[in-house]
């Protein structure tokens, strides 16, 4: 299964995957809104080996993460938010959800200097909670009463991105090294860069926790976000809805 950044052409297929898998649905414009506001943050898992079906074949999307930045963070801290994440039942146990999430989180840090990422999950969705809490190490912040349209409560979860920031810095350093290797081409040697890194927050806990080490990959179907479509593209605090 390939993991890659989403393009506009993927959106109807993401919408299809969402409608097939999850109870929280959105119309296409809401997906467009994500893709055109934070194009760096959303990723898809694609079955690239499937033989082409006709001249206008579209990729088969088996999983996606739809993510955004919180536009007006109430705590004043830049952070990302997972609107929806889903992996087809037929493609579980490949660690796809985790791999999608990791790409998204890296971009949240690199592009938007996110400090943490938040999400909502139905209290009753045990499988999704397991993925978030045990595999992805999110922690439950609080319960939001009657968050979902049908009256169910949501757990509001978050994950600090300090580790991801550390990783981003490592990648940046590697790029630097590579630049220095390259003879005479790069105009590197910019000493101020490293101090300007994205990890200007507090000291990093759990440095270098090997994400490969938590091998408990299980369940992968997840419902997050809420079931309202966005009629107009007003950017406002979600809690006001």
């Amino acid at each position, binding site marked *: *299964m*390939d*993991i*890659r950044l989403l393009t*506009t*052409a993927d959106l*109807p297929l993401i*919408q299809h995957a969402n*409608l*097939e*898998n*999850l*109870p929280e649905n959105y*119309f*296409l*414009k809401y997906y*467009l809104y994500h*893709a*055109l506001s*934070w*194009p*760096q943050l959303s990723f898809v*898992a694609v079955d*690239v*080996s499937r*033989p082409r*079906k006709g*001249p*206008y*074949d*579209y990729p088969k999307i*088996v999983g996606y993460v739809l993510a955004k930045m919180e536009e007006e963070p109430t705590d004043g801290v830049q952070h990302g938010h997972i609107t929806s994440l889903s992996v087809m*039942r*037929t*493609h*579980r*146990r*490949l*660690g796809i959800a985790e791999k999608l999430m990791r790409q998204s989180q*890296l*971009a949240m840090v*690199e*592009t*938007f*200097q996110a400090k943490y990422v938040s999400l909502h999950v139905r209290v009753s969705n045990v499988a999704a909670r397991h993925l978030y809490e045990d595999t992805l190490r999110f922690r439950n912040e609080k319960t939001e009463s009657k968050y979902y*349209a049908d009256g169910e409560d949501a757990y509001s979860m978050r994950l600090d991105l300090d580790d991801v920031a550390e990783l*981003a810095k490592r*990648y940046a350093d*590697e*790029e630097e090294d*590579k630049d220095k290797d*390259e003879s005479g*081409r790069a*105009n590197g040697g910019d000493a101020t860069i490293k101090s*300007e890194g994205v990890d200007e927050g507090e000291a990093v806990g759990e440095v270098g926790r090997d994400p*490969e080490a938590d*091998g408990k990959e299980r369940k992968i*179907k997840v419902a997050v976000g809420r079931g309202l*479509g966005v009629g107009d*593209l007003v950017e406002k605090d979600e809690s006001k809805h």
Partner: protein
Amino acid sequence: MPQPLAPKEAAQFRTIIRSFEDKQYKRGLKTAELILKKHPKHGDTMAMKALILNSQGKSDEAFPLAKEALTVDMKSHICWHVYGLLYRSVKNFEEAIKAYKFALKLDPSSAQIQRDLAILQVHVRDYQGYIQSRTAMLQARPQLRSSWTALAIAHHLAGSLTEAEKVLTTYEETLKSPPSRFDIEHSEAVMYKNSIIAEQGDYQRALDHLDTGAKHNLDRLAVLECRADYLLKLGRKEDAVKAYRLLIDRNSEHTLYYEKLEEAMELSPDDVVARKAIYDEYAAKFPRCDIARRVPLDFLSGDEFRQVAESYLTLVLNKGVPSLFANLKHLYSDSFKKDTLREIVEKYLTSQDVDSESKDKGEAAALYYLAQHYNYHMSRDLAKAHEYVDRAIEKDAKSVDFHMTKARILKHEGNIKEAAEMMNQARKLDTKDRYINSKCAKYQLRNNENEKALKTVGLFTRAETVGGPLADLLEMQCIWFLTEDGEAYARQGNTGLALKRFHALNNIFEVWQDDQFDFHSFSLRKGQIRAYIDMVRWEDHFRDHPVYTRVALDAVNLYLKMAEKPSANGTNGADEADALEKKKAAKKARKEQQRLEREEAERQAKQDPNKGGHTHTGEVKKKDEDPLGLTLAATTDPLGEAMKFLGPMLQVSPKSIEAQIAGFEVYMRRSKYVLALQCLNRALGIDAENPRVHEQVVAFRKLLDNAPSDLPPKVLETLKAEFKPVDETADLSKYNEAFQTKHQASPLHVLSAIKARLLLGVDLAKCEKEVSSLIEHASATFTDAVAALETLKTWRSKETDAFRTAALAKWPNVSRLSE
């Protein structure tokens, strides 16, 4: 020139505008009436009143009023602007643009009118007009970065890459100090400019620009991907290797990176040892990476393949990954690999140390794999598939996956009824999973159980949506359900509801097209330009999506059928029966409509008014006047209606042979022979041996031979010159026989040859006999039998029932044969 008002009325007029903007429509209308009482012919007020009426959904009143406003005040930019806005709201963009232009001529300084005009121009892809508008807007507000970016976009979309780049550079040169490193708008503008340089094919300059201007760009992934791409294109192989390695380190699950890495390392495709080494390296580096383990199976062969496949399969079967088969089935085009994979799994199944206790790992996983293997079309043996899936179910009687596969096997046997029941059984094993719920509903629809399916999906749709599950599915644009639902109705002869669904789907696609409208301005505010360009380009061809083609074909075929049916007021027996049936159907439909209305009223009465607040926009949903599609089904111009679907399909999917075939049928019936021939020639270009195309070739030759009287001689000459497949002197019957002889092994080709014979005047009874005998064809499958049955049905053949009985004797479980 707007008519001047006294200060008091002028203030009131401003109130109207404010009321309109705040959607205080009632208040706005009231104020308008106050002015109109004193100045009944005040154009601007009349125009504003029209605008408000239109927003209230009263466009019937709005248009005449706006026109009247214009007649009393021809020189008012407000009147023209409103006129344009009204046209825009009914999507008559051409007229809207004209009106905006008039308005702008009268008030060249209006930023609002200029902006509305510009947005509409890019919306309809009038790029030259857009460039003009954006140039004017830049002159008005040069201090805004987005003014410059917008002009660059206009040039870019118009194809003037150098102009676009120049505009961006000019703006950059005005910057006194570089913007903050974390300025996202700037960061994106740099990458946008870079993409324009690259699009010009100047990769060296693009690379230099990246290395100087995008060193610390916020979009790291884009920088790395562009850089790797440019380096490879420039032949700087060593640097490209490094660049792709960086990318794989970030994301080891992207096949493209490995392919490019191989290219940069200049590995020959035959050098499997070196290629394998790369993947091995990454498999070791990333223990959970799937691609590094699986991709070598694509290029290895012989014993090496067997060895690697065995270790991969053992690993994955031990873990019990359900997507194993889906991940490997592409290898089945190679028969050696297909057999080897089966052998390995069979061996695994019988080996001593395999886990036989687990519900989903080891033995259970192997049984599951083999069930899917024998169910797959390239390795199909459905009896064996059943055997393996039943053994898997013995391991875990509660497995959703195993039951789901069982249902699929039944479907491939043509037993749609039992397949649907089995899928429902699978659904019940995990009622919290919407995926299996969706699959179950889909199978129920295949089994023509529309109501049951709606109930099934209703377990997951939002309960609070006004109008029930169907309304929720419509609102959420649930394409798959509406398509399957419509097709099921079409199969059952419920033309109204089938058309209802197909039109609903067409509306959804139209909404998708309209969706881009807001982004023409939104994206400039957000600054994410590359994503915006990507969207604009996608919107230009998004109907080439296979789901649109499918719906369009469904609708066109249904309209063709409607056009075929003789009119209900005919005199012969068949027509009378038809009329009677139509009456019955109409009565049934009326009852059904009454039932729906009753249910809806009851449901609304039960609804807690305090919980109704979830309709977030507060807009009143318009009542559907034709919920059963009776009006749609009553159309007197089915072929004209078909054009609504056919036109866009032919435009964006010319390479689809089904689209061309459908196009030919519609154009022939509409006597548009030039267009019909165009479709036929395109179809011939795609697949000259297609059986349907053969029928059409015969039909067209016959048309030319008969030379219809309504055809001007000149046109006939052109058609003859453009029609190549059968020579004018050739005997058409012989041509048809030759086709049949050539394709004797294929029942569908033989069927087409028989249909062509009927067209050439062979006796119907004889043709019916021939169609009936297809059942004896050596390689006939139940799908062929269904096609033969359909043909007999359209001919209203007396052989139909006998054929059905015979076919069912041969394929007893095939649901479509008993329909």
